[in-house]
């Protein structure tokens, strides 16, 4: 009795605190300013000193691949933005930059809030551990504490629909089950910003719809969403704005419909 009261007050306090925090940083979720990114191109990676000396002359000059050129994007809290463009236009690189997996050569990326990336699902799953253990491990990579995971574990398992297999080692899972578990973890880590890279090819029709519904719900809750997709239908359905990347530069930013229509006209 006493404990539940305490819990209630704690929750209340946390909620108020969060409210204050939200108000304070109500402006921008992601700010990308003047970002340049080049990748070194490794033709045949010269790893040893001998090779480096021998190929010194050959490797001079243009072995850098420019991926992103002077990107400027601002995304406010609660907005959902789509990144569209042909293959190799730098969409995924931009997402990776936002997660801080890689860093820009110059320019600045400011991210306010906790990020959950649905880029590479199931990263760090250990095949020999059970599904349940992997949930703990995977969620802890996202920066959750044990207690937070304890609170969520039932949601996660329910969402993945893997109740019967959750204590089996992950290596026995089918690829669909694997993805479902990974998606369930990533979407339940209570992040402020979700980065989604074409992962909605997860599972069957039923599960996909469930994912869409969940993302919509998160959007309603005021989460910021950055969404990479080639499917204009999905983009139109989810996003307030769209950014069209072409060969590493922003070609057009604006309302989803406008940008999509023009994109389809050019690339359709």
């Amino acid at each position: 009795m006493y404990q539940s009261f305490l819990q209630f007050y704690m929750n209340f306090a946390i909620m108020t605190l969060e409210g204050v925090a939200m108000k304070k940083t109500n402006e921008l979720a992601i700010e990308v300013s003047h970002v340049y990114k080049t990748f070194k191109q490794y033709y045949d990676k010269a790893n040893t000193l001998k090779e480096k000396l021998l190929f010194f002359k050959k490797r001079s000059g243009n072995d850098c691949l420019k991926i992103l050129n002077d990107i400027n994007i601002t995304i406010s809290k609660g907005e959902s933005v789509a990144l569209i463009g042909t293959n190799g236009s730098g969409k995924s690189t931009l997402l990776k930059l936002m997660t801080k997996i890689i860093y820009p050569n110059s320019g600045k990326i400011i991210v306010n809030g906790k990020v959950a990336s649905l880029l590479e699902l199931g990263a760090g799953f250990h095949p020999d551990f059970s599904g349940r253990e992997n949930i703990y491990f995977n969620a802890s990579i996202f920066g959750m504490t044990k207690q937070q995971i304890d609170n969520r574990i039932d949601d996660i398992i329910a969402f993945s629909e893997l109740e019967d297999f959750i204590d089996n080692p992950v290596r026995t899972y089918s690829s669909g089950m694997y993805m479902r578990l990974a998606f369930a973890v990533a979407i339940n880590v209570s992040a402020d910003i979700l980065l989604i890279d074409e992962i909605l090819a997860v599972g069957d029709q039923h599960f996909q719809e469930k994912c869409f519904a969940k993302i919509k719900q998160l959007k309603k809750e005021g989460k910021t969403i950055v969404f990479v997709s080639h499917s204009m239908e999905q983009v139109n359905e989810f996003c307030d704005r769209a950014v069209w990347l072409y060969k590493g530069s922003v070609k057009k930013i604006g309302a989803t419909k406008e940008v999509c229509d023009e994109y389809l006209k050019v690339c359709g």
Partner: protein
Amino acid sequence: MKLIKDLYQYRELLKTNIKKEIRGKYKGAWLGVLWSFLNPLLMLAVYAIIFPLILKNDIPHYTMFLFTAMMPWNFFTSTVNGCSYSIIASGNIIKKVYFPREILPISIVLSNTVNFLITCIIMVVFLLLSGVGITPYILLFPVILIIQEVLLFGISFILSAVTVYARDVEHIVNVGLMALFYGTPIVYSLSMIPIEFRKFIFLNPMTSIIEGYRSILFYHTWPNFMHLGIVFIVSILIFIVGLFIFRKLEKGFAEEL
């Protein structure tokens, strides 16, 4: 400061990582984590057989003399060896998810610390059994341990980050550690070194640390606080420089791996 905040937020990851490190070491072994106990015990048995019987020398209680220095040294080498590969070993996750990369070398240091503490239990038991005994000086143990930890954190930051860019470091480290083993008074005592070389041996920070352990555990005297103080300051410097290097280099980890 950012490091402490990150570590606090990702404490669960740190915890599971340490656990995985300790359990993973003995994975597939029938006796499992029990090896943490058995390993030093067997090593002690080997010393106890070889030195009094085959390689006789004048130092009384030579087995314990060796043991009190060898265990901290093993802690040092296994950590340094382990951390230089720590980032590369987790390359898969680094390329996919963001988390404070410092956690990887830190969990290596901490998991080895746990192993070392287990070893120390055995050490204390055998100090009592062998007749060397323990004295209140043992209370200084945490002080020396902390100095060693700071030094190890610094070294691990540097080595783990640099190894990503130049894998040669791993091999250099191997040879370097072997050389350092003979450059540290482990198998011999400090008094065996000719006076004119003695100042050089103190250039090796591990000398003061090992001597410190030996003073409180074996000789039952005060450790040389001046030497320990110098090593502590040097360790803090290495730590700061190491963290700085790590922060510089970590930005390229995902691309380099």
